[in-house]
């Protein structure tokens, strides 16, 4: 039976779409059959980050409204054969997502794939609630700053009350993924430390993704960072997180501050 994972956060701009693409690609690279689904109707981005924006013919809304079959709307990744994308519609708004339609498509996706990863829109409105509705597991993307952590906490409350599992009195698995972490700034107390975040959210940690130019470069290339630069530190952190998601136990490596000679000489921070 497929596992449905929602990537959510409450706050915008923390790295949900990047995480969806990177985790989805990492799982697919390990041989799992994966579909990433963009729930951000009206502000779709996952197609860009996956480099599939020129191949979208039918989208999620077309399938919901019966204008296309699911198999016609799924876009297979050119680099990783076991990875597919279901794009959101850019021309519609979130009201076009109906509860029944989403339920039907999620059931179909569960039959076809091992992992269905839902990229939630920001906020706590309809789109975000529908994205989390059918999830078995939630990855809560948080940046080490107080506003992001509080919004994540709000989302955790919703995951515990508004999902199908919660309504059946079952627990949804919840994990924190700390993105854009900068060890140097955390050490100088310019951002929250890992312990602070986990203490506030009281949830298990799925991974710590370092703040890195590699992530931005990958997004601009239209390629998940785990595909475009698998040796980079964010890609390795995402690959480890993906393996933890499948139930493996892997020692957590916390990205340390790296200083090059230039940085040491001038007391600055290495990029």
């Amino acid at each position, binding site marked *: 039976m497929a596992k449905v994972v929602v990537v959510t956060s409450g706050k915008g701009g923390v790295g949900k779409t990047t995480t969806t693409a990177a985790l989805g690609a990492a799982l697919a690279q390990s041989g799992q059959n994966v579909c990433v689904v963009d729930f951000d109707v009206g502000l779709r981005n996952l197609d860009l980050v996956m480099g599939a924006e020129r191949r979208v013919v039918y989208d999620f809304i077309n399938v919901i409204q019966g204008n296309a079959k699911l198999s016609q709307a799924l876009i297979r990744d050119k680099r990783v054969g076991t990875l597919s994308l279901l794009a959101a519609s850019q021309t519609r708004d979130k009201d076009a997502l109906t509860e029944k339609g989403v339920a039907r498509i999620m059931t179909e996706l569960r039959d076809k794939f091992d992992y269905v990863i839902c990229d939630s829109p920001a906020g*706590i409105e309809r789109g975000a609630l529908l994205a989390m509705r059918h999830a078995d597991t939630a990855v809560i993307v948080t940046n080490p700053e*107080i506003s992001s952590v*509080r*919004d994540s*906490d*709000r989302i*955790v*409350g*919703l995951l*515990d009350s508004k999902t199908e599992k919660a309504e059946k009195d079952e627990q949804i698995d919840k994990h924190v993924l700390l993105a854009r972490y900068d060890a140097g700034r955390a050490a100088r107390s310019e951002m929250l430390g890992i312990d602070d975040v986990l*203490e*506030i959210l*009281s949830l298990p940690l799925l991974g710590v993704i370092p703040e890195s130019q590699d992530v931005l470069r990958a997004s601009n290339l239209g390629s998940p960072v785990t595909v475009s630069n698998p040796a980079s530190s964010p890609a390795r952190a995402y690959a480890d997180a993906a393996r933890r998601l499948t139930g493996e136990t892997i020692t957590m490596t916390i990205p340390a501050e790296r200083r090059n000679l230039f940085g040491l000489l001038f007391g600055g921070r290495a990029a």
Partner: protein
Amino acid sequence: MFRLVGRSFLAFVLSPEPPLADWIDELDAWIERSKGFFDSRPVMIDFSRIELEKPDVAGLLAQLQTRGLRIIGVEGVDPAWLGPGLGPLPTGGGSARVVEITDGKPSEDEDDPEPSEPEPTALVLDFPVRSGQSIIFPNGDVTVTGSVASGAEIIAGGSIHIYGALRGRAIAGSDGNAQARIFCSSFEAELMAIGGLYKTADAIEPELRGHAVQAWLDGEILMMTPQN
């Protein structure tokens, strides 16, 4: 069959006091500090602490309504003075109960009702209270084994005990119980209130932050002290 469902909920009671102008100023200040506090909360007005003529009552109610207060009832004045839509308060209040009305004869055991379950007087929460969640328990004490997040709130008729960090709001003695207390293992609250008297984070000594703290009422003053 026709079902009537009884529901109990927490309403805040505002008791205007003379001089009225000062009281309204204070209310405005409170609304300013706690924007949105009254948005989804029903309010009742108790006129028993102030003597007003009929037009003054109507004027005050109109003034309160323009501040966005949702007034559901009024007490302490002649009910005949009130306009449509505002009734006198029902007395008492109880727990949620389902009343089933059938159009047949009343059932036979009606004269001999089952003794109802005693109401629980304490609520224990074994999970952290998340931002945006509101725990309302007018019947007694609330104990939380985890933390109360920033943006969450606990409203208890009795005392509040928090074994984690208190980062949100704690409102104890919500029905006016001045004996209620608040205890927390790590104090980082946004607002503390007991028996209707409150302090916001700004008004609380910064030295208490991060410490285990007890709060209680000394007359009309909300006192707080570190616990050792």
